[in-house]
């Protein structure tokens, strides 16, 4: 029997055994309100028109598919195509989701927006849409991340957002999420929580996926138009997994299209210093949903490691957990070194500085291309641009730019 992947999640927000609503009682009512509002809006013609209009005129969609010919030639295998989400306003796919959630917040009459951020990309995308709406935006960011992502912190401030460093736990993305949930539970009446990835309690995994699914819808049409066929394989990086599910979703029922997610293997999965929840984690409950998590034998969430702050998260969206167990998608680890090598390769062959997150996808795309014949097409989601990472890369290479 074939699975219709587009019917998921079910009414309880479950993707098979994953997903659901695992939150404290106080948040059940605001989540029910959000679910009801989103259910109404997602099929509302004027809401969809408003969303599409913003994506076209504010974000700059559609983003092109670019044939990385020199890179493909150098690799010597299948053709590598790039979905250029890096060309969006604010430099990544994250804006697709914040545009959508901002419209939902507006329709719900919310007067304050909160968000969590790791690398700062979702924080910037949230601050951006809040500036445009003229409503206050508070961004929670782990104190460690505030240190390593100073430029994005400043970008958020320039956009009028308040950045609150989080001092609890490991002081990274997972703790920022905890703190945002604590803020929300304290300010349920007027506050909208803008989650940046396809994790969290229902309806977030579905809603964030739907807003990013524009990536796959465009890509499918572009492939048919430019190449007269669908790609043989899709590749995207997976931290929480929003850019990946955004690309994958439209293709899930196309059984001939192979799907690969590249997780952050950090120093290597065997070292324990990684963020590969699907490849090396186990089913558990974190941040409101059942999914694969990285934790110790006592169920305590582990600190993760990746050169890319955006992939440095111990959980993963529940739909990815489902796709892994269903065998529909394959999730593989890419180490820091492999991602950095891919970053340089793409820069030198194509003149594109990819985000470190996206460089994991590029590395996986290169690996895959080597194994496949030249007439096959691999579509890699270039989810963001690398300007934000220039300092990190310089530091790793022993340079100090400032």
């Amino acid at each position, binding site marked *: 029997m074939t699975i219709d992947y587009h019917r998921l999640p079910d009414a309880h927000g479950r993707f098979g055994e994953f997903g*659901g609503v695992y939150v*404290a009682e106080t948040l059940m009512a605001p989540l029910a309100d959000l679910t009801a509002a989103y259910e109404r809006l997602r099929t509302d013609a004027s809401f969809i028109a408003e969303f599409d209009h913003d994506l076209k005129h504010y974000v700059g969609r559609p983003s092109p598919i670019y044939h990385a010919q020199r890179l493909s030639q150098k690799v010597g295998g299948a053709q590598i195509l790039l979905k250029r989400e890096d060309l969006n306003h604010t430099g990544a796919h994250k804006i697709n989701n914040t545009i959508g959630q901002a419209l939902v917040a507006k329709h719900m009459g919310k007067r304050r927006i909160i968000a969590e951020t790791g690398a700062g990309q979702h924080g910037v995308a949230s601050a951006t849409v809040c500036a445009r709406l003229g409503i206050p935006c508070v961004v929670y960011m782990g104190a460690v991340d505030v240190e390593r992502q100073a430029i994005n912190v400043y970008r958020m401030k320039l956009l009028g957002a308040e950045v609150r460093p989080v001092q609890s736990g490991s002081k990274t993305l997972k703790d920022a999420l*905890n703190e945002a949930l604590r803020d929300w539970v*304290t300010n349920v009446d007027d506050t909208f929580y803008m989650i940046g990835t396809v994790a969290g309690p229902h309806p977030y995994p579905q809603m964030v996926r739907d807003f990013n699914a524009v990536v796959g819808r465009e890509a499918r049409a572009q492939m048919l138009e430019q190449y007269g066929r669908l790609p043989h394989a899709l590749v995207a990086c997976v931290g929480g997994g929003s850019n990946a599910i955004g690309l994958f979703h439209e293709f899930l029922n196309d059984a001939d299209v192979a799907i690969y997610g590249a997780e952050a293997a950090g120093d290597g999965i065997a070292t324990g210093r990684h963020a590969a929840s699907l490849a090396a984690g186990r089913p558990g409950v974190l941040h409101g949903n059942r999914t694969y998590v990285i934790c110790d034998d006592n169920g305590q*969430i582990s600190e993760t490691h990746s050169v890319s702050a955006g992939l440095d998260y111990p959980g993963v969206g529940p739909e990815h957990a489902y796709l892994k167990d269903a065998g529909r998608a394959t999730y593989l680890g890419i180490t820091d070194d492999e991602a950095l090598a891919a970053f340089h390769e793409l820069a030198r062959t194509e003149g594109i500085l990819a985000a470190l997150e996206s460089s994991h996808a590029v590395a996986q795309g290169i690996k895959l291309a080597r194994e496949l014949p030249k007439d096959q097409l691999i579509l890699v989601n270039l989810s963001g641009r690398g300007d934000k990472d220039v300092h990190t890369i310089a530091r790793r290479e022993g340079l100090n730019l400032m």
Partner: protein
Amino acid sequence: MSRISDRFAALQAACRPGLIPFVTAGDPLPEATVALMHALVAAGADLIELGVPFSDPMADGPVIQHASERALLRGVGLVQILAWVEEFRRRDSTTPVVLMGYLNPIEIYGVQRFASQAVAAGVDGVLLVDCPIEELTTAQPLRAAGLEQIFLAAPTTDAARLEKVCAAAQGFLYYVSFAGITGAAHLDTDAVRRRVTEIRQRAHTPVAVGFGVKDAATAANIAGFADAVVIGSALVDTLAGSADAAEAVARATAFLAPIRAALDALRTDHAA
């Protein structure tokens, strides 16, 4: 009958407002936990809530977050916590013990394995903060093994939902006095009274009120209309930094005694 329902029945018969202190297992020191539990009972606790530390306590304020972090740094986990409850039970066979925490540690331990071992150790109930009634099936093995599942009701819980929460509740219903995290803010006692009165009409279990109860005055206020009062962050904060188990015990006793006295004075007032 269970230890929890026995205890609430006895409280009701004696017109005694229930006092439920919360301490994080293993905090301020792992060697203090069992001694603390006995000291709390001696100082007037009617039921003990023992917090299971978790790395990501999303419903907790800074005080309990830090207590969890301290306990985790000392390697406190479920094996040890169950051993402490077992040790407590050797000298106290009547005071109910409820474990309060988050799902993941229990999931990873194995819900079934945890359930049978917890019952064997003498745990009476479990309050899983991130397991609302919608996810009941997750906790089914707990109920099947005989652990009572305590549920929360919140200011945001509407009437229709409250019916379902009351129907699912075992042991007692824990009313969260305000929308927020543990240990925060001030209490709007009138709003809490209105809500608790409404809930008590619907619930078939006793109703305890927690979050934001800081001292004897607020406790007595709440006890005027609730079956029991939960006091957590203020106690945990008091215990923090104790040099040894004896100091933790002394601090706990000094903290709880005036609260117990205020609740008992309430009873005398009612009688008079």
